[in-house]
């Protein structure tokens, strides 16, 4: 809608609305940061200010040096990395078939990936736990990677399919005429063009595995295998919760995701597509 120049009053109004909304969007995150640098003796305050008197980074020090923070971090990195790799690979291939090919069972298949989202995921937990225990995959990275990949996959498949549909069919036809086989046409021609979609799919899978807590709680009972959120949750359920440490942990979890969002926010526009329900 860049055709018309807005008047000065309208522009001021728009900026005003956006500034107020941005403050509301950011304030809670700043609040967590404020709590994380709060000295121990101030538990509650009736101030709206973010930086408390006597601010200190001791909670961060304590978290890194006195808690098994680095072990949790390692576990989270391993699980998230492989979830992203697996999730993106599987969604890139399946989404491609759904978007560009016509084959018997296409529509039911697409609906299938929607339906699996409808079951309350918490109720899948118990059977999944029993299943993974049977094949000895509880308390293992692999078990968690499989669980996470599965839970993000339906959304990722829809997302990738939506993105492929914005790529004209003619490109692929041209590639086939030029003598590439179907697979080559896919990964030499279409896949590079789909990179904005792939980036967003990767972001989805990273976010869900990096932030997830309920499944990790059920599957990882050995403290050495805790992921970051699972470990931080443990801090908050202790007899005497140290809120500043909990908040410091939350900030550490948030930072990578927030940075990624900021870097990728231009990709998000246009890269984020779910396609249409029809067809």
């Amino acid at each position, binding site marked *: 809608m860049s*055709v018309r120049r807005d008047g000065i009053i309208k522009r001021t109004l728009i900026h005003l609305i956006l500034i107020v909304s*941005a403050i509301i969007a950011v304030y809670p995150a700043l609040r967590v940061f404020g709590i994380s640098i709060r000295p121990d003796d101030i538990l509650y*305050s009736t101030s709206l200010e973010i930086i408390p008197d006597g601010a200190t980074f001791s909670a961060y020090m304590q978290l890194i040096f006195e808690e098994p923070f680095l072990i949790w971090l390692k576990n989270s990195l391993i699980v998230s990395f492989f979830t992203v790799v697996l999730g993106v690979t599987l969604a890139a291939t399946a989404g491609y078939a759904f978007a560009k*090919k016509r084959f018997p069972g296409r529509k039911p298949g697409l609906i299938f990936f929607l339906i699996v989202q409808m079951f309350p995921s918490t109720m899948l937990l118990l*059977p999944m736990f029993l299943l993974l225990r049977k094949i000895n995959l509880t308390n293992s990275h692999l078990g968690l990677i*499989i669980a996470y990949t599965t839970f993000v996959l339906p959304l990722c498949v829809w997302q990738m399919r939506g993105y492929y549909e914005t790529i004209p069919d003619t490109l692929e036809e041209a590639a086939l005429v030029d003598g590439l086989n179907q697979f080559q046409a896919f990964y030499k021609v279409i896949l590079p063009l789909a990179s904005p979609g792939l980036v967003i799919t990767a972001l989805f899978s990273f976010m869900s595995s990096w932030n997830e*807590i309920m499944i990790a709680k059920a599957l990882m009972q050995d403290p050495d295998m805790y992921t970051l959120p699972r470990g931080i949750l443990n801090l908050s359920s202790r007899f005497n919760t140290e809120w500043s440490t909990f908040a410091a942990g939350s900030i550490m979890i948030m930072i990578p995701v927030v940075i990624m969002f900021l870097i990728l926010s231009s990709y998000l526009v*246009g890269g984020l*597509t779910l396609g249409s329900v029809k067809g």
Partner: protein
Amino acid sequence: MSQPTKADIQKNSLLDFSLRKFLKRNGFSYLMLMPAFIIVALVIIYPFLYNFNLAFTNLSRSTLIDFLREGKLHYIGLNNFVEVLTQSTFWTVLLRTLIWTIVNVFCHVTFGIFFAILLDRDMIFKGIYRALLILPWAIPQYISVLVWKGMFNYNYGAVNILLERLSQIFDFTYEPIAWLSNPTTGFMAAIIVNVWVGIPFMMMIALGGLQSIDPNYYEAAEIDGASGFQQVKHITLPLLKPVMMPAVILGVIMTFNNLNVIYLLSFKKLTEKIDILVTYVYKAAFGYFRLGYAAAFSVIIFLILLGFSTVFIKQNESH
């Protein structure tokens, strides 16, 4: 020569059917789908069927030990389903879940489109606004819910403090609200938190959709003298619709099944007073270990969502 009818073609293709041709034509597609399909089938379908099976048993705290030791299950037919559907709580909670879902998704979509329209223009700080407005999406839900819980605190919460200060500035009376002690305000608080969490996703989908709208439409409307509001109503919204529809369906499913917000916000305080279906099920299963009952309950939740999506998709197809 007469044109072959559709039935003829079908008959012919049935006669011509050979596995080799079929595979040659579709094998690649199936190969591409196979890995995703297998992993989803194993990790979701198996537990799903397992859960379906549990729904017909009386598995609960007293029979759990037997089950874990010897795998013994006692089938009680449809009793669990009957119990769920004849309880008045189910209907209250269902009604609350419907209000929860409709209000949330409506606000997500409305605010999402609203912000997207504001952001889709040339102006300074556009990138900064966009980045800041996405932030609620980037924060893990359990963290933002816990922070909001603190912000709704009666004495020390930012919400009451802010409203009080506003009341001093603008000179109206504001009695501090004990947000989380009362079911009505507690439910409102939960909706506020969830609306805050869910706007960025819809905003980004809508922004993507807006970019695909041809600017010529607006130019033409401008020449015809259409106001900004008319342009939004007659150009923007109709053209956004196909882009927003899958997001709306997904949004409904996710809001309906959102455990985090209500569960964490009502934890230890408004216990069971503001439950929606999934939090109710979660407590029945992992709080009271009524696993058979909870399994039946989840099957019912699934059927409700399945029914909704089917009707919704059918309706949109016919338009």
